[in-house]
């Protein structure tokens, strides 16, 4: 049975920001994937970047260094 994990959900103002996140993360070996924005979150774009909370904590400095734009980072339990 799948278990929910504590995750970081990064939302975006635009689809282009989401695409930039995916491209730079893939290039840089940063974990995560695009998901539809969970209904609990309000965001400009319907795409969000999902990482585990631990991964986010670890990679957050690198995301900042890359200058990747996102709207906000929310924490929630996700499959």
């Amino acid at each position, binding site marked *: 049975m799948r278990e929910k994990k504590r995750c970081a959900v990064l939302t975006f*103002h*635009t*689809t*282009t*920001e*989401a*695409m*930039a996140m*995916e*491209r730079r993360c893939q290039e840089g070996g940063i974990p995560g994937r*695009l*998901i*539809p924005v969970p209904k609990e979150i309000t965001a*400009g*774009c*319907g*795409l969000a970047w999902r990482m585990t909370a631990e991964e986010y904590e670890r990679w957050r400095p690198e995301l900042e260094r890359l200058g990747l734009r996102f709207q906000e980072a929310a924490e929630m339990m996700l499959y």
Partner: protein
Amino acid sequence: MIYLDSAATALHRPPEVERAMCRALHTIGNAGRGAHGPTLAAARLVYGVREKVAALFGVSDPARVAFTANVTQALNTAIGGLIRPGDHVITTVCEHNSVLRPLYRKEDQGAELTILPADALGRVDFDALGDALRPNTRAVVVGHASNLTGNVVDLKKVSDFTRSHGLLLIVDAAQTAGTLPVHMEDLGIDVLCFTGHKGLMGPQGTGGLCVRAGLDLPPLLVGGSGIRSFDRAHPSQLPEALEAGTLNGHGLAGLGAALDYLLDRGMEDIHRTEDALARRFAGGVRSIPGVTLYGDLDAPVRAPIVTLNVGELDAAEVSGRLWDEAEICVRAGAHCAPLIHRALGTQERGAVRFSFSCFNTEAEIDRAVQAVADIAGEG
């Protein structure tokens, strides 16, 4: 058939363009409208093309590249969004109607317009910019190259002027994108408008504009954006702000493949090839009695365009005979650039434009020269 009308639209394209478009027809959804596989494939494809366009034009942030249906829509967005009633704008007689008509519309709404003249070779004296300057001057709008003469504008000189006077610089790169280098940020261009279906060798229905960081450019169109759906107002974030409605994802797939080819082969090599073909043609027709050539053909940097008339013949007749007798495709008529025709005295009969692709051959050029000679000889 010999296609010498690439300034109107590309016909010769890398085969990858067609393949990419066909693949996209079967694989992509609507970019930015969901999170399933096909829509993500579309969004990734579009973002990839943004990155390539940004790399080509020296734009550090791909989000500042917005796609439109063509360069006319891009120019209407730039001119329509930035020029206000009471503003003064400087442009030139060399411009295409895609620049002139949006400016005339602004003039009708209260803007002021100064149109710099050209000399007998169709060259604009940009030293005259200083004389044209007014306290309310807001922008200079200029084409990088004339679609009639092939003359190229020294954008560095124009941008030195606009930067030193705090003016906006809007550039129409319809005839040079993919042929001549344009580094938007080095040159200090505020809005660079381009089409995808000429020198970039992509399909029709593609184009766009690159917007300088920090410049607030209101959209021409508003509507579906894929983001902020419950907001009454269209979103202001680039590039979605300037891309209302579904993008031409299938066309952009082709444009992306064309850009791959262009970036891989190198624009310098493409320009060198086209320039050599254009100069070979110009050199060949120059000595034919009765042929009148237009433009500054000896300039070191030119767009691959050679325009001429034969004797007193109507340009349409010449182009018709070239097609009927030699299957050579060229453009006759007014070329949507009325003011430069008046400046060169060709407003009555038009002019015959030959424009070249890196896929043309020297043998094709020589056959075209002979076809012009045959028409000139027969009168």
